[in-house]
């Protein structure tokens, strides 16, 4: 675990020392604030729980975008700059490298989510909010962030271009949100499978409404593990190329 912690520490340092982490965090938080003000609060009176649901709805989209943007550089940048050799010739295993890279992006996403907490807090101050609803919503966002950063880590391992990485990641992330559309035109049993793979309707909807279902926790965890495993295999395969 020491190697994972060292990689996480360096990567987080790179986010904070460079401009990209700050720009992405600022951009996401600004958009989230605007969306909260315009759509979640709106002009008409709403129940606090409805405001929270709207907040978590667009926050999920923002989390996906932040995750893909933050993870695009993880491995692609190292390959482009020729620094991947430092990790690959160290005693750290491919799995530790993968975990360290992913975890750093995920922690940064969690920090952005933490910085957005003032919005539900405002709702709580001015209305009535059940803490469980807030907890469920943020747990859902954290799980979406974990899965999306794992997806981004994988696309970053496929190329030495951050642009290609973010485009691939963006396409895959967008697909995860429109699987329900494909499920409508597919025949059984494929329709059920596609619907299950949808990030929003089948899984995040419950978190948004304040409910935690084990099946959704398992789903996001499985997606995270699946993409991390793919990343580890890509790193391993490159040693044999």
């Amino acid at each position, binding site marked *: 675990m020491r*190697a994972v912690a*060292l990689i996480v520490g*360096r990567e987080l340092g790179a986010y904070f020392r460079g401009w990209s982490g700050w720009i992405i965090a600022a951009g996401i938080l600004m958009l989230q604030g605007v969306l909260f003000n315009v759509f979640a609060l709106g002009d008409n009176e709403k129940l606090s729980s409805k405001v929270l649901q709207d907040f978590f709805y667009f926050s999920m989209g923002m989390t996906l975008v932040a995750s893909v943007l933050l993870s695009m550089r993880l491995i692609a940048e190292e390959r482009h700059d020729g620094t991947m*050799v*430092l990790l*690959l*010739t160290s*005693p750290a295993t491919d799995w530790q490298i993968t975990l360290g890279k992913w975890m750093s992006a995920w922690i940064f996403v969690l920090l952005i989510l933490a910085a957005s907490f003032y919005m539900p807090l405002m709702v709580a101050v001015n209305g009535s909010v059940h803490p469980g609803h807030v907890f469920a919503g943020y747990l859902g966002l954290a799980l979406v962030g974990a899965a999306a950063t794992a997806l981004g880590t994988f696309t970053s391992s496929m190329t030495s271009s951050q642009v290609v990485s973010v485009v691939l990641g963006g396409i895959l992330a967008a697909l995860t949100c429109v699987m329900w559309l494909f499920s409508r035109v597919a025949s059984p049993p494929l329709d059920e499978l596609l619907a299950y793979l949808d990030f929003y309707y089948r899984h995040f909807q419950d978190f948004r409404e304040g409910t935690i279902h084990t099946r959704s926790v398992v789903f996001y965890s499985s997606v995270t593990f699946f993409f991390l495993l793919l990343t580890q295999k890509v790193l391993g395969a490159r040693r044999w*190329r």
Partner: protein
Amino acid sequence: MIEVDGLTKYYGDIRAISDLSFSIERGQIAGFLGLNGAGKSTALKVLAGFLLPTSGTVRVDGVDVVAAPDKVRRRIGYLPEEPPLYKEMTVSAFLTWLGKLRGMSGSEVVARLPSVLERTGLSQHGDRVIGTLSLGYRKRVGIAQAIIHDPTLVILDEPVSGLDPLQRVEMRKLVRGLGGDHTVLISSHNLLEVEETCDLLLMLGDGQLVAQGSEDEIHARIGTGASFEIDVRGDVTAAVTALTALPGIAEAKVTRAGGEGAPSEVTVHLAGDDPATEIESAVSALVGGGFGVSRVETATGELEDLFLKLAGTQEGEA
């Protein structure tokens, strides 16, 4: 001790290195010498654990690079041709981080860092951000990262490439100083570079080891690689026969046939280790034999010549 046995690496269908076998004693400085594309960098990447071999074994202190990669990587420091550096970090922070990643405790790194900085001439630059350093100093940081964890084997791929003459001299001195404490393996396509720095030469040609041994051993086998051109007037075939009969002449061939009354150019490859004496003997033999000699031009031992000769030797032995 480094033991390499039957090392082969393919990139898809392309064979990069084939059946390399050699060993390097602890504390020796060995040099991979070869033309561009000879497979030097690939061999070093495999030895560093960056790439896995298609077949064959590499053992560092008896530990196999494929069977126990993490244990072997702990014992290896590797500097590719382009130094891999996190440019946003300071020199000290970078080296400390790498030392820990390679298995050192925090206190071990703190204790070792000053000596590594001093050895690589970076004592005054520990707090500098790497991105602000010149290429020469970046190379030094590259060597520092390769030795920060006190590895058994230090692998340096073209450590002097891109440096100016003064930096080259300093870098050679630095590499030379690594011997004894570490086993060092460097690569170069410059014969003089390797001769000045290394105890053991490993000559690669087309992915295969074409010669290995000390500088003296290789010269005893193939000569210095020196050659000279000479313009000869008269029966050039007889002149070539006279030259090849002399001791210390490996080969003589007509490289430009002369016309009516014009001299022919003959290129002579020397096999001995005293080019000046051999050239004098050759000229004396030709003049004594009644041939006209109008121009003699010497050439130093070109790597290409050496490899051509070695390739010829290999074919002859096969």
